[in-house]
Structures are given as C-alpha cells and as structure tokens.
C-alpha cells in the first residue's frame, strides 16, 4: 500500500525546480504543513511567501508576483482557495492572465469529519466556470509528478486539486502514460465506459476489475484534465459502449459528470449516469467511509454499471 501522498510529490517536484530556477515561488496561507510544503519553506526561505490566514491576499499576491516574472504556486485548502479567493482567481489570475497555479489541498471530502466548511465539493464547478482557468485532478503520485512537470513549463493559470490522504497507485514507476490535456486510458473494455478523475480513478479501475470477474468489460478513462476536457478522447472511448458512468468526489452539479454528459449528449447520445457526492452536507466519517456510503467505492461503481447495462 502506497504511503506517499500526492501533495508530497508536488512538494518534491517544486523543490527540484526551485533548486535551479529562483523564479519558482510557493505561497501558503498558514497551510505549509497541510500542504506538505514545509520542506520547501525550509530549503527555500527566499522563494517561500507566508501570507497568514488570508486567502484573498494569497491569490492577489501570487498574481502580482507572476506579473513580475515569478512562477507562483499558491497552496491552501481547496475548500477555502476555491471559494474565499474565488474572485481573485477570476480577476487577478484568469482575467489578467497571470501565471498563477492554485493548489487546492485536502480537496473533496479529505477532511472527513470536519464538516462541510472544510469540504470542497464545488471547486470543479466553480473553477471551470471561469474563462482561462484550467482544472486538474491527478489520480496518483506518478501522474501528479507528470502533471506538475508539465505545469512548470507553461505560463497560464490553473487550479490543481490534491487530496489529503495517500492513494493507491493507478500507474507504476516508469509506467505512467501522460500527455498534457489528454485523458489516460487505464484499461479497455467494450460494454461500459467509466470516466473518473482524481482519487476516484483507483476505485473506478478496481470496479472494472471486479466487473471483469462477472463477465462485464469496461473501459476506465482517467480524465485528470477536467478543463480542458479531452472531448476527443472521451468520444473515442465511448464509441460502441452501451453505458457511460462518471465518478467524481464533487457535487452532482457542474463537475466532471455534467461536462461528460454535455459532450456525449451532443455527439453520441446514450445513457450517462453521474456518480457524485449528494447535494447536501455529507455524512460524518473518514473519506473512505463517505465514499462507501454514497457508492463511490469499487463495489458501488461496479453495482451501478451492472444494474444499468
């Protein structure tokens, strides 16, 4: 079982680049511990900006730094950075087109029992609705590395959601197929297509394995690039299947499910089911317990596919 979190990998990649590029800057809002960025702050004090518990200031300062040539990565809990500083993301980052990367840490229901204030079940919808804002949810530590390497090469704003807990590997060392803004096919099948993002990719892959033992073959598509959604990759994967199921750690509105439904509905109409968190404060529990309760684990996903084919 993998013990390394995606946020640790993000810190590792940013540190590697900061050693050779003094323009790589990290900002935190009293969140360096939660973001696993304390090692970065320690090694690069001159490239680390602490703003205190002030998310609007966090994103505004990041935009100002970017305008003057810095490559800022602003990390704060996803629940806060995607809502408290939403307007700064919209105006100072996206509209002004500054090279700011917003890292929403402990995304989705990572904070489990801390309650709805600390959950970010709206961040995909909110960030995706901003013109010139990209939205990424990497699935495992290997893909997180590939994604950050790619983001360090570009100069446009983006929002990246990372979870708090270590997730089981979807890919393997030296075997993580990755093309920027192209969905990754995790496994191929012919009966159903399961499209997932972030930490829902692993349970989706496990669900496909489970279904295989029951005589159902399913493709699993890792749509880590929720915006820009890989519509061509999606339509290609959806060709010939009877059912499309989307899985996300997000509200049922405006997220991966909505976007996939739009593309399928317009181009290759067929049944699309959206598995997501409810439109309500989620039940108290660890994220694993929450996922199982709402059918977002391997068994739940497999059941949905089986019962709707």
């Amino acid at each position: 079982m993998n013990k390394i979190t995606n946020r640790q990998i993000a810190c590792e990649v940013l540190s590697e680049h900061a050693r050779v590029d003094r323009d790589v800057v990290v900002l935190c809002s009293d969140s360096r511990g939660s973001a696993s960025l304390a090692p970065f702050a320690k090694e690069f004090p001159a490239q680390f900006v602490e703003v205190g518990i002030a998310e609007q200031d966090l994103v505004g300062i990041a935009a100002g730094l970017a305008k003057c040539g810095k490559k800022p990565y602003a990390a704060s809990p996803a629940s806060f950075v995607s809502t408290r500083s939403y307007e700064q993301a919209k105006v100072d980052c996206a509209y002004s087109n500054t090279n700011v990367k917003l890292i929403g840490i402990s995304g989705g229901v990572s904070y489990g029992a801390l309650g709805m204030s600390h959950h970010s079940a709206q961040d995909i919808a909110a960030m995706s609705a901003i013109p010139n804002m990209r939205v990424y949810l990497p699935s495992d530590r290997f893909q997180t590395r590939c994604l950050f390497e790619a983001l360090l090469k570009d100069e446009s704003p983006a929002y990246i959601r990372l979870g708090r807990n270590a997730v089981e590997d979807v890919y393997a060392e030296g075997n993580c197929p990755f093309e920027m803004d192209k969905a990754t096919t995790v496994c191929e099948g012919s009966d159903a297509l399961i499209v997932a993002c972030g930490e829902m990719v692993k349970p989706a892959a496990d669900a496909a394995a489970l279904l295989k033992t029951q005589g159902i073959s399913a493709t699993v598509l890792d749509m880590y690039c929720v915006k820009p959604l890989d519509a061509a990759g999606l339509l290609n994967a959806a060709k010939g299947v009877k059912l499309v199921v989307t899985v996300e750690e997000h509200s049922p509105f405006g997220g991966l499910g909505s976007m996939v439904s739009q593309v399928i509905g317009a181009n290759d109409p067929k049944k699309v089911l959206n598995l997501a968190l409810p439109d309500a404060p989620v039940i108290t529990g660890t994220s694993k317990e929450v996922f199982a309760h709402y059918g977002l684990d391997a068994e739940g996903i497999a059941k949905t596919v089986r019962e709707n084919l």
Partner: protein
Amino acid sequence: MQNLKALSYKLRRDVVEMIMAGKAGHIGGDMSVMETMVSLYFHAMNISPENRNDPNRDMFVLSKGHCVEALYAVLAEKGFFPIEQVIKEYSQFGSKFIGHPNNKLPGIEMNSGSLGHGLPVAVGMALAQKMDGRPSRTYVVMGDGELAEGSVWEGAMSATQYALDNLCAVVDRNRLQISGTTEEVMHQDSVEARFKAFGWNVLSVDGNDIDAMNAAFDEARTVKGKPTLIVANTVKGKGSPVMENKAGWHHHVPTAEEYEQIMKDLEAHEKEVL
C-alpha cells in the same frame, strides 16, 4: 518643464469628451484622482511606451478601476495610444477601451474593476521587485469607499510583514461614494490612524495640488523599512461647480448644457494656471 497643473485640467477635458462620446464613465472619481495620476505618470514613475516591457520599470495598479477614463487620458498623453482613438472607441461594441482597466491595452499591467484587489496584487509586485533586487517601485491607487473591502487590510498587513518600502499606495480621499458620503456609508475618518496602526508610513496631503502630490511621492521614496500610504484629500468632481462634491456625479453622464458649463470651467482653470 511641463506645466502639470495645466495638464491636469486638459486631461480632465479629455475625460469629459470620452464620457460624452461613450455615454458612460465614472466622472466624479476621474476628476478627483487626476492630479494623482498626472503626478505618477509625469513625475514619480519610471514608465513610458519605450520601457513598458522592461523588468526594471515601475509597476502601477489602478485598484479603483472604475476611474479608468483618467488612466486612459494619462496613458494617451504619455503616448501609449492616441487620445482620438480612445474617445472614438471608449465603451463602443467590441472595443478594448472598456469601463475598467484591461491589460490587452499597452501600458495597463493588471485588469481590475472589482474593488479591494489592487493592494494585494501590488504587494506581490513589490515583493517580486525585492526578491530580484530591482531598483523599481510599485504604485497602487485605491478609492476611499474601497477601504471597506476586507482584502485591503489583508494586503496592508502583508505589506508591512515584508517591509515593502518600494510600495506606495494612494487613497483618493474624496469622501463620497455612490450612495452618499463615506462617513454615512461606512466611516473612514481614521484612515491615517488605521494604516499607521498596521505599520505604514502615512502622509496626508491636498490631493488636488500637483506640487503636494509630487512632494509626497518624493518623500515616500526616502522612507525605508515600511510602505507608504498617501492620503490624497481631494474633491469629487474637481474642476467645475456643476459636479463638485455631488454624490450623484459618481457616474453621471453630463447633459449638453452641463457639458458646456463643465468645459468652460475646466478651460478657465487651465488658463488660470498656465
């Protein structure tokens, strides 16, 4: 040497022409902030069309973005684009000259419009200049009504945390906002004391006196270890009794009669100081 007092009135007339042609604009604040803008662009800042991409240029953010007409007039006078183009295109369909700053235009660094954004952004710019050991400075202009935004105070805190003595903020203290006086809407009378309490160097001057503004920007440059706030005490609608100190002129478009009178008053002021 250019007569900046006269220039301030000439540029006010350009603003009025813009607003008449576009049938929109925030005339009251444009008039109050004009000496601040002229002093920045013709005295304090190292910025011109020639060095607009130089990393050592001074940075400017118009946080009270609704007074973009004053910025357009000053940028046109600096040669970033012709004033005739601004008057012709301002607020027209498909125009780049919109009602708030837009960095698709040369000379504009950041888009603004929503209040309370400029100070944190300016903190980031000043911090980057410090990190890179640049000689340049960062300037930001806010409105007094804008100070009710909490994000202003987040920025004020971080500016002193990082000892940004290369940062100079201006509050255009015209004492009026869209619904009435600032004191009625949300009191700002202790703005100097508030910023001092946050650790800033604070200067309070007549913001419609170009000499006073020039001197304040010069003094700010000499202060080390902390950022400077210049409270520019101004008159909203400055330049004509038709609009001076009237909250209703926040974004009023003059009638034909009002236009005639305002232009006469502005020309008279300009002649007076020539």
